[in-house]
């Protein structure tokens, strides 16, 4: 008996056929990977399954009955729960209230039972590793913990199908383990799971079956174990397997990041900041890519923000090109030639409502202005150069950045940074949440930029990316440098071992 069946479903938007005759089957207790590049139709399919969109053709069968869900509420009531990629909870409400929103326990007067809610919330969240006070505002929790609350919420409804859209994108490795524990438990209870992720390692670790979409069409569905990893990538990208093999899993070319030697372009010494950074020192030579590794909360983002002047420092020194930065501010950092790409692209990076041109021009305006005026032609020239160079795919420079794919948004952001002609580029999770094709392009770009003599600092929670992308990896733990991996022979296992060794109390858990 199939739990959930999608039969020849189509969905058309003006000008786009988002889903074209797609079918697949989810069995009870199955963990089913749904993969494809951005724009392949995964999100549309999920929205059709959860009642956000109505299909234009085909049908949904749930427990062998044809169904249609008019709203997300309908789908939820029937037992289909969804965890979205970006945490979709209410930040200003308490953890417990978020957990129970819409199905709060009530006492005999029909009023909400606050005590019971708090007590039960604490019990429910325990197995997910969330031990904080459940009366706290959700928004004050770390992103990973928020994601866990979302997961707990999705599972605690009597769900028979749980859809997870990139659930691990904001989790640290230990939390991923907790998540997988929960998934195995759901699997054992016969709950069907649709698992969307760009991380192939995870898919092979946790999924039984796989459905691959490309350009709104089904290109493959079947058991995952029978599908070779290379074949999966090539199906997903629609490229030859041999081509994928040649290019590797990431687009980095290992021997390019040695740097040109010589004096470091960036030197950070004994950075200290409140309770987050205790003693961080590292340097970056021109043309070198230095990775910052470690768990979430180890201080990676804080470190590069501090270098970029966007995080308060209590002590320490930052030198760019041998010149000491006297005052600690973003203005000084930008002047000295430091460009920073923040982790949260949407909140801190691009301005979604502005066009590609305006986004790129933002950073260069102050530098190009003559008596407060900027010539349009000059901006056009610069925009044109960077759009070509970074291969930004937009219908025109005037298209709003919010309408571009994640990968192209990231490239616009990079273009804006590069337009300031920096000496040092600080990248925080540059390939998070963008599809495989765009990831390859961004990685290639990082390579090219380093080759041109830029010093690059790369923060990534993707171990492969860190190993293949960086020449040296500085490993942090609790705001302290605990290790340094150098050379081309470093493997993913080495990195994980260093991170693990730096966290002795985690060992018994593994």
């Amino acid at each position, binding site marked *: 008996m199939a739990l959930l069946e999608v039969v020849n479903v189509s969905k058309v938007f003006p000008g786009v056929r988002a889903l074209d005759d797609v079918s697949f089957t989810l069995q009870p207790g199955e963990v089913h990977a749904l993969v494809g590049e951005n724009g392949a139709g995964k999100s549309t399919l999920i929205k059709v399954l959860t009642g956000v969109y109505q299909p234009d053709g085909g049908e949904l069968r749930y427990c062998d009955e044809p169904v249609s869900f008019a709203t*997300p509420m309908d789908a939820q009531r029937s037992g289909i729960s969804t965890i979205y990629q970006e945490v979709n909870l*209410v930040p200003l409400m308490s953890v417990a209230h978020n957990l129970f929103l819409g199905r*709060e326990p009530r006492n005999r007067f029909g009023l909400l039972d606050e005590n019971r809610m708090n007590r039960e919330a604490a019990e429910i969240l325990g197995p997910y590793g969330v031990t904080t006070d459940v009366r706290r505002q959700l928004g004050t929790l770390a992103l990973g913990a928020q994601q866990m609350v979302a997961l707990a919420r999705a599972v605690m409804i009597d769900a028979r199908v749980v859809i997870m859209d990139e659930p691990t994108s904001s989790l640290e490795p230990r939390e991923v383990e907790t998540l997988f524990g929960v998934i195995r438990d759901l699997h054992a209870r016969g709950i069907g799971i649709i698992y969307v992720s760009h991380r192939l390692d995870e898919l092979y670790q946790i999924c039984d079956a796989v459905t691959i979409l490309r350009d709104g069409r089904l290109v493959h569905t079947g058991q995952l174990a029978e599908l070779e990893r290379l074949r999966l990538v090539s199906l997903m990208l629609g490229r030859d397997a041999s081509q994928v093999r040649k290019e590797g899993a990431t687009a980095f070319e290992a021997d390019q990041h040695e740097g040109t030697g010589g004096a470091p372009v960036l030197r950070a010494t004994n950075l200290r900041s409140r309770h987050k950074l205790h003693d961080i020192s590292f340097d970056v030579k021109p043309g070198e890519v230095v990775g910052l590794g470690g768990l979430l909360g180890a201080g990676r983002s804080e470190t590069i923000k501090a270098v970029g002047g966007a995080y308060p420092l209590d002590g320490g020194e930052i030198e760019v090109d041998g010149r000491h930065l006297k005052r600690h501010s973003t203005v000084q950092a930008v002047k000295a030639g430091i460009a920073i790409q923040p982790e949260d692209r949407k909140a801190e990076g691009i301005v979604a409502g502005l066009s590609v041109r305006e986004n790129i021009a933002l950073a260069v305006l102050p530098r190009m202005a003559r008596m407060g005026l900027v010539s349009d032609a000059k901006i056009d020239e610069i925009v044109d150069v960077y759009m070509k160079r970074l291969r930004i795919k937009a219908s025109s420079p005037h298209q709003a950045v919010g309408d571009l794919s994640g990968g192209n948004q990231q490239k616009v952001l990079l273009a804006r940074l590069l337009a300031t002609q920096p000496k040092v580029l600080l990248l925080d999770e540059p390939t998070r949440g963008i599809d495989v094709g765009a990831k390859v392009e961004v990685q290639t770009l990082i390579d090219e930029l380093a080759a041109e003599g830029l010093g690059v600092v790369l923060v990534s929670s993707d171990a492969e990316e860190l190993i293949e992308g960086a020449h040296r990896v500085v490993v942090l733990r609790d705001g302290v440098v605990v290790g340094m991996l150098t050379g081309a022979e470093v493997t993913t296992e080495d990195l994980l071992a260093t991170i693990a060794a730096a966290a002795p109390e985690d060992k018994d858990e593994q």
Partner: protein
Amino acid sequence: MTQGVVAEPEVPGKIVADETRRAERTDRIVGHVQRQGALAVLLAVVIIAAAVFPNFRSYANTATILVAAAPPMLIALGMTFVIITGGIDLSVGSQFVLGGVVAAYASRWGLIAALLAPLLICGAIGLLNGVLIAHTRMAPFIVTLAALLGARGLMRALSSEGSTTYLVRSDAFHRLGSGSFLRIGYPVWLVAVLVLIGIVVLSRTRFGHAVYAIGGSEDAASLMGVAVRRTKVWVYVMSGVLAGLAGAINAAKLGSGVTVLGTGMELDAIAAVVIGGTLLTGGAGTIAGTIAGVLLLGVIQNMINQVGNLNSSYQQVISGAFLAVVVVAQTYLGKLRRVT
């Protein structure tokens, strides 16, 4: 650059636990300040006023303040719900006046008609507001601005361009506004009951939590299965009904449907709600705070009246200053809560 004294991490796990505890504590303290700040300021002002003005602390004066605050309190009660959903209702001032005129007009048919007519008419305006806002996703600002003009026009049409003043013809209705129990006017008791109900509804029902969720993140609330549209419609209906009731009570108290008062009452209500700690962006706020906000404005007005020779318009200057301080403090506190 100052060299901070930072302890070396001896036991990393302990640091993290301390960090979490500290974040929890900061969150709790800041949360209290956000919720109870207005109450603390109100207490301070009352104590000062009681010390400086002998007349202020009399029972009669207290009753005066409370009776004067009753209609604004009703409007602010509805506004609290509206603002917590992230909306705004500019039409309540006009609805207040319309409600008063309608109530006075309908009082010729007795008490029940005098109460029901404004509630129905203003409820209908609120329903129109709610449906337009929830179902067509038009901006609350524009929709309720239109309703403000519409309600004002209706009132002027009913009162022949404001020149006709209807007198209250029902003694029972007039008594409702002017009578008192324990030397405190009936309106105050009525408002107290409604406010208590409001507190329970907002904090202890699913509807109340839906109100918070919608203001906190409408998309998330809708994905989590909250009935966003229905909740929004109800919130504007409530706001309209309460504004109409406030107008009716006011008419009952004055003995006539006055056509000139009430302009700008929507702004006073918004000010009181925001001073009470409700975020104008939605998602957070309490009715207790709103009570403190309304009373604070009322007490300041009363204090200025006590001074005697001071122009009562200064009340607005002081209210404005309070509002500015609260908004700045809220921004700061919100930041403090996040950067832990």
